[in-house]
């Protein structure tokens, strides 16, 4: 409830505090839909793709794949209709940025979609929004109604003769539908079980047609790139990771919330300068830097720039930029219980390594937390996680294995103390 505007804003979110920005008139007053008009009336589709490619925009859904390159994979010509799928299935624990981009900036995202549709000559976009996001879903629906009434979308987009329809579908509670081929299966009215690749979605996507899947935030950046040019965009962030992103900070900080900052901003700066530092005067223990799938960093390693080229050196990744902060009272075995329960619950069950592995990880970690584990159990955890990684149809098993590997890498002592004491040695830790 209530308005959740980022504490720090930049070009994506600067107008999110203005109520009329959510409406077509207010969006247009601030230059909205001019980038799409420019693209559709003065640029060829290839020129648009080349512009996005030149900007270096990386997908903001977690994998960081270059967006313009992805667009260029779409086949040109032929008689098959081409589709776009907009991934609004934000469900990565620690991530809550797409929600605000939908609630306060639905037109901004739709403008990016129309520009992408022109670049890829796509006839239809399916926006797949998680079912729990009733509020954001309503924002998208209102913006779509305005766009159709104003002739921005539909049979004659912006009066240019270009046709593009946008369909909103609500999901129904399944983390795996955020995986791009799980999303495509779900769009087709099936269980969201990811597909084997190849064929990739650009060849065989939604309903068997060439499809490009991009995240809400990725599309939201596009109009700014078209308006100001790739060089302007590269003025934000690092050489390899340009632009801003919306970091979400949660957990034990004084000021949890959203912060739009350039990629490459230091993690310690985000936590201590922007999010008010650790709450209640406590010391920091560890930080998950990019949503729960990403390996944790101990307090001593947060002097790192938030971009993949730097985070990889510390064996973790940017993911969705969801920063989960844990103070000195936190039992990392308990945190691992919560993490592995989630992955056990959300595994789609297709691949044995994942279906069984996520369950084993959770069971063994729960046993250790209860004080009934052995030192051998700790080695078994590492063994299972290693055998899950890279062994399945999609990256979910990696996402389940990495956080456990990170915990064992940096907080093995917490696990060993449980075994030695026969109980949880962190009496002040959060309740399970």
């Amino acid at each position, binding site marked *: *409830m*209530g308005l*959740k505007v980022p504490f720090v804003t930049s070009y994506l979110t600067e107008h999110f505090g203005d109520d009329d920005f959510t409406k077509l008139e207010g969006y247009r007053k601030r230059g909205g839909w001019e980038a799409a008009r420019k693209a559709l009336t003065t640029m060829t589709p290839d020129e648009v793709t080349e512009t996005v490619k030149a900007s270096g925009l990386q997908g903001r859904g977690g994998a960081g794949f270059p967006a313009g390159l992805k667009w260029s994979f779409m086949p040109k010509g032929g008689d098959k*209709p081409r589709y776009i799928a907009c991934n609004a299935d*934000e*469900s*990565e*624990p*620690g*991530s*809550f940025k*797409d*929600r605000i981009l939908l609630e306060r900036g639905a037109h901004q995202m739709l403008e990016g979609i129309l520009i992408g549709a022109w670049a890829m000559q796509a006839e239809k976009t399916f926006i797949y929004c*998680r*079912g*729990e*996001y*009733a*509020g954001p879903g309503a924002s998208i629906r209102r913006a779509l109604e305005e766009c159709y009434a104003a002739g921005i979308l539909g049979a004659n987009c912006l009066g240019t003769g270009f046709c593009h329809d946008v*369909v909103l*579908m*609500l*999901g*129904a*509670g*399944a*983390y795996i539908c955020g995986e791009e081929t799980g999303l495509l299966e*779900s*769009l*087709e*009215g*099936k*269980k*969201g079980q990811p597909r084997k690749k190849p064929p990739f979605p650009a060849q065989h996507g939604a*309903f068997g*047609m060439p499809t490009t899947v991009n995240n809400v935030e990725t599309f939201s950046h596009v109009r700014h790139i078209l308006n100001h040019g790739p060089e302007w965009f590269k003025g934000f962030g690092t050489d390899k990771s340009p632009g801003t992103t919306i970091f*979400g*900070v*949660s*957990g*034990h900080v004084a000021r*949890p*919330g*959203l912060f739009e900052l350039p990629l490459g901003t230091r993690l310690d700066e985000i936590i201590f300068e922007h999010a008010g530092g650790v709450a209640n005067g406590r010391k920091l223990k560890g930080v*998950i830097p990019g949503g*729960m799938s990403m390996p944790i960093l101990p307090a001593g390693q947060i002097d790192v720039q938030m971009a993949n080229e730097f985070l990889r050196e510390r064996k973790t990744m940017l993911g969705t930029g*969801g920063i*989960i902060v*844990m103070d000195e009272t*936190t039992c990392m075995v308990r*945190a691992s219980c*919560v*993490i592995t329960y*989630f992955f056990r*619950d*959300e595994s*789609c069950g297709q691949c044995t390594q994942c279906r069984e592995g996520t369950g084993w990880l959770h069971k063994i970690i729960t046993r250790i937390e209860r004080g009934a584990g052995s030192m051998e159990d700790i080695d078994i955890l590492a063994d299972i996680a290693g055998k899950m990684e890279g062994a399945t149809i999609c990256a979910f098993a990696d996402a389940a294995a990495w956080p456990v590997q990170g915990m064992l890498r940096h907080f093995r002592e917490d696990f060993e103390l449980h075994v030695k004491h026969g109980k949880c040695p962190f009496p002040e830790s*959060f*309740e*399970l």
Partner: protein
Amino acid sequence: MVISEETRAKIEAEIAKYPQRRGGLLPALHLVQKEKGWISLETAQELAGIFGIKPVDVMEVVSFYSMFYDRPQGRHHVHVCTNLPCSLRGSRDLLRGLEAHLGVEAGETTLDGRITLGHEECLGACGYSPMMRVDETYHEDLDLASAREIVDGLK
């Protein structure tokens, strides 16, 4: 016939948006559940007829997604997020408190059929925790007192 004419018309309108009829199945399940509260075998059979698929094809979709229910539910859903960011800020205590207040455990429905209490995985409100979803509405930055007040206001 279990599904009303009105809902059938809405389902057909959804189906028309997709290149294949089955694309309308998730929207149809949402619509039917809005009318019926849950998806019974009879409902699944009728839906299967509308989509030209088998009832089991409908039920396997129902069972895959956590927001579709294959048994009757309370009039309201109260779901507390217990994922890591929320747990760190006391959401488990909040859930325990609501269990005690309502006299049910997570996953159960109150005897008067008023509330089904549950816990949920991340709802995208990590910065505003603890939080709970009541039907379609998010309530954030809660403590037990404010959560109890919200729950008591449900008819």
